[in-house]
């Protein structure tokens, strides 16, 4: 039994997501509180009188004023993480043109988040500086002559908080929205421990540049800003020389904000990517099963988790595999297996169709759809996967030649003239579009579709590994030969997918020379095609002797041979 995996008898996708989000939001809120406590503890440091130190910390932390500060802050963080959650859970929309990309930045969701980021940035600086007991504790102070003057240093820091929130959202949050699954699933506490120090280091280094930008900005507009602030609130201004410590505070508060945001992101990642053991058969009508989870493409996180679960069960868990290889009790149908393969094949073929569509945009001739194994008997889809041991061949289907009648040319002179004219107009339009930059803004980005495919790559990696491990385990564990009837279809789907993926090698933006090592799309392309290759290799190795018995297309067999031999 794997203790890292959540097991639960029945749940719906909503339950699952809510539970995960609940844990991540609660832990990010509590981590903020913990950080605050550590900060107060460190700022009250008094080594000679440790008891005083602890007492003063406690005093600060239990006083009413502190909580008056903390509660609104926590509420803000809470709101921020709830709104963030949408980005991690729902399918992100892909923008195929530059214009769409530009417009999508100005969505209501983003504007609300930007506002929250700015407010949280400002309040966190305000909170840290007022709890730290420094000279920048208050925004105003008593000065001679007038009753209140502006505390220039405090104003400077709060402005920096505003800037940090803005900068973080624009620069980092918008670009790093996808979740990343860890290579291996360790305990959550261990993951947290191993990430804590690197995060701290990263935050201190990543907050240097925004600090420098802020200093430049403040140097340029800081005076006018503080003057207008003073005149608005009727505060006096006083010439004061700031100690160099203020730059240290500036850096530290910036780093703390970055650290907070990183932690929040980390908690989302930690809880959302935690593996789940899906039930293999439906317990109640609205509960979620593994087979359904694979098809939920609107909630990519659930789809990912389902595919991950498939790959782990097919590798490690014999008794769960056995559930798939059993026949239903009344009737003797392999329902569990049928639904699984049907959904998986749908997923794989959909993916390979999407790939082939995005690679053959130039070619007008459509390639024939992938040959899948189909029963010649027209029957409702639900009975399609009935066991059929007669091993039909799909060679017949593949050999059909499409005959199309080309219309006779020659008798249509006005038509050709018209044709030429329209062509000319079109050409001029194209040139104009390029000249005025319309194509640049509204034209479809060349690899948008491919990028969309590759972003979902983990699903394909896990599902292909999963199905291949399952199929290979079946040679010993499948007592009823359930897997056999679907094997040709599975192999064909995997081979077609691999062939479509091979076409990506011709896409110039995905070659090593142009993309370089660090490009995500390039790496993901390698990962998917490697995983597919290994899956096919595994099947070939296990079924090597028997593959000739399966009704496979000739080109599929040839392709398998190239994979297995080279």
């Amino acid at each position, binding site marked *: 039994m794997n203790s890292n995996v959540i097991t639960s008898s029945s749940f719906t996708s909503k339950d699952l997501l809510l539970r995960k989000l609940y844990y991540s939001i609660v832990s990010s809120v509590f981590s903020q509180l913990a950080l605050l406590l550590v900060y107060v503890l460190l700022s009250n440091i008094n080594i000679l009188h440790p008891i005083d130190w602890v007492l003063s910390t406690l005093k600060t932390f239990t006083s009413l004023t502190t909580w008056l500060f903390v509660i609104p802050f926590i509420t803000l963080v809470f709101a921020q993480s709830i709104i963030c959650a949408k980005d991690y859970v729902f399918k992100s929309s892909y923008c195929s043109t530059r214009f769409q990309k530009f417009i999508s930045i100005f969505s209501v969701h983003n504007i609300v988040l930007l506002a929250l980021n700015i407010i949280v940035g400002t309040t966190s600086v305000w909170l840290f500086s007022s709890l730290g007991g420094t000279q920048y504790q208050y925004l105003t102070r008593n000065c001679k002559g007038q009753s209140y003057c502006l505390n220039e240093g405090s104003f400077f820091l709060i402005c920096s908080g505003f800037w940090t929130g803005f900068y973080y959202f624009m620069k980092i949050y918008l670009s790093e929205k996808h979740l990343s699954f860890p*290579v291996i699933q360790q305990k959550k506490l261990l993951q947290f421990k191993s990430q804590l120090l690197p995060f701290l280091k990263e935050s201190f280094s990543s907050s240097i540049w925004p600090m420098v930008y802020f200093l430049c900005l403040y140097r340029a507009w800081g005076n006018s800003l503080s003057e207008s602030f003073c005149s608005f609130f009727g505060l006096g201004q006083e010439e004061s020389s700031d100690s160099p410590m203020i730059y240290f505070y500036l850096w530290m508060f910036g780093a703390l904000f970055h650290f907070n945001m990183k932690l929040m992101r980390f908690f989302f990642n930690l809880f959302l990517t935690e593996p789940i053991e899906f039930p293999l058969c439906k317990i109640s009508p609205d509960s979620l099963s593994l087979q359904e989870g694979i098809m939920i493409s609107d909630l990519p996180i659930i789809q990912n988790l389902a595919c991950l679960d498939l790959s782990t069960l097919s590798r490690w868990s014999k008794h769960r595999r056995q559930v798939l290889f059993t026949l239903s009790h009344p009737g003797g149908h392999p329902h569990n297996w049928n639904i699984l393969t049907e959904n998986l094949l749908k997923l794989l073929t959909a993916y390979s169709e999407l790939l082939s569509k995005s690679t053959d945009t130039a070619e007008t001739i459509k390639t024939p759809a992938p040959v899948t194994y189909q029963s010649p008997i027209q029957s409702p889809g639900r009975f399609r996967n009935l066991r059929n041991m007669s091993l039909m061949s799909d060679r017949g289907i593949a050999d059909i030649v499409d005959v199309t009648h080309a219309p006779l040319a020659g008798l249509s002179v006005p038509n050709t003239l018209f044709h030429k004219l329209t062509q000319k107009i079109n050409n001029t339009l194209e040139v104009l579009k390029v000249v005025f930059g319309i194509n640049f803004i509204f034209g479809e980005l060349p690899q948008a579709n491919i990028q969309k495919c590759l972003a979902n790559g983990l699903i394909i990696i896990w599902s292909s*590994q999963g199905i291949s491990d399952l199929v290979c385990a079946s040679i010993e564990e499948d007592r009823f030969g359930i897997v056999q009837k679907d094997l040709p279809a599975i192999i064909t789907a995997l081979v077609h997918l691999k062939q479509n993926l091979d076409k990506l090698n011709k896409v110039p933006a995905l070659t090593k020379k142009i993309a370089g090592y660090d490009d995500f799309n390039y790496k993901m392309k390698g990962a998917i095609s490697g995983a597919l290759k*290994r899956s096919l290799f595994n099947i070939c190795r296990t079924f090597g*002797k*028997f593959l000739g018995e399966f009704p496979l297309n000739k080109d599929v067999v040839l392709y398998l041979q190239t994979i297995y*031999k080279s």
Partner: protein
Amino acid sequence: MRNLHDFELPNDGEISLCEINGRIHSMNYDYANVNAFTNTVDNFPKIHITRDLLHPVSSGDEGKALFIHVDVSFLKQLTQVYYEQGFIEALHTASSHNKVLISKTAAIILDVLKNVQKVRLILNPNLRYSGSNLISQFSQTRNWMNNTIRCIAWHPYCAKVAVATCDDSIRIFSSDSGTVVPLLRCKQQKHITCLSWRPLSNTEIAVGHENGIIVWNIDSNSLVARPSISNATILQRPNHRAVMSIAWSAGGDKLVSVAACDKTIYVWDVELDKTCSLKRPGGSGNILVKWSPTGEKLFSCTNGLVFRVWDCRNWECERWSVLNGRIQAACWSNCGSTLLFASNNEPIIYGVIIKNDLVFTSDSDSSSTQAMPMFDVSKVDIDGVIVGGLVQCMESDPKGKRLAVLFQDTNCVAIFNIVRQPGLQLIPSSLVMGLAEEKPSAISFIQNFEAGTCLTVGWSSGRIQYYPIIYTDLACSTEATQSINVSLYNSFSSQIF
């Protein structure tokens, strides 16, 4: 406990060549030819890498030797050194001269740097790295520094072998005679420590070297004799230095690496260049990692007392420790339920039974609480030949029936039978000796040898010897047929591949 006296040496002047159905065949040095007894190794490549075949190792300053030393002015010399060898060397040069102000400043800066480095080392002892001596100390290869052959790795499915040599290159020999022998070599690949073919792939091999890992992808149909670096993926992490051992998961999707100066064990997703770190207290580096044949367990050992067995499903570990010294060699046997190991200061082979599944759930019924001493391999004199001593390297064959042991300072490779019933036992089988003056440097079993099992020994002369052990395994064959009978596929017989 049994000891090495149970072994028998062949007659004087003869060396043992192979073992067929329990009988050891030997022949005179001069006419030694294994083909006289069996034709099972005929197809395998004949490998003898002499010193002449080695490529010169470029250290970057060959050009210097060609020029006569001339006296140049101090400033010019300083700039030269700075450009060629960097800032630190320039400081050393400056301090060694007698220029009053400059030399003193340079000496002071050097002192400061030295102290900073000392503080860094105290804070983080992993940074200490003493170059190839350290590799030599921890390596599984005997006399790693000077022997021609450093590692031998057999491909899991086909008759293909990769041999790493001391000129930082890897040659891939395959059974088809006449094909090109690809030579894998690149600037980044220095001081090779380990090799591992990727499972479920015909073309990929991972190479562990001083600064990281390189995964080469070599198309066997290609006629290129020196594949370029564009066929390789380079994996590196800061401070993960002197990679000592690497291991692929059974599915070929994960790679584990350990380094001598890094406490962290990395689990890599090779294509995505992503890692997860396994970090536990104990030791300041790791030297050996081995995946169990079933892929469920992973063995790792530190350069201290501690070694661990990880469960690969939840990545929790069972902690073991030796009384003193550290583990020098270890291998899985018995389908991953037994771990055999030897430490670096005691000539005894120990065995630990590691039960599957139960280990991590209930403590009372877990695997054995302490390792059993299995065999005393201390030095003995058999007919004038000294055998045994501290263990350098241990390998078990893919079927888990034989164990080969390479010793640190004696020249025989000992082969044991591993017996499982009634209890785990090591039975002496045979001793493999080289020609005169030959010392073994690396051993490896062929992964898919149908007639039994076959050990390959890389000798210090650069020769690779095959030692086939041929037997008909009754127990194994009945098991196999039984398992196949369960499924429905036994009716098929035609072959496609």
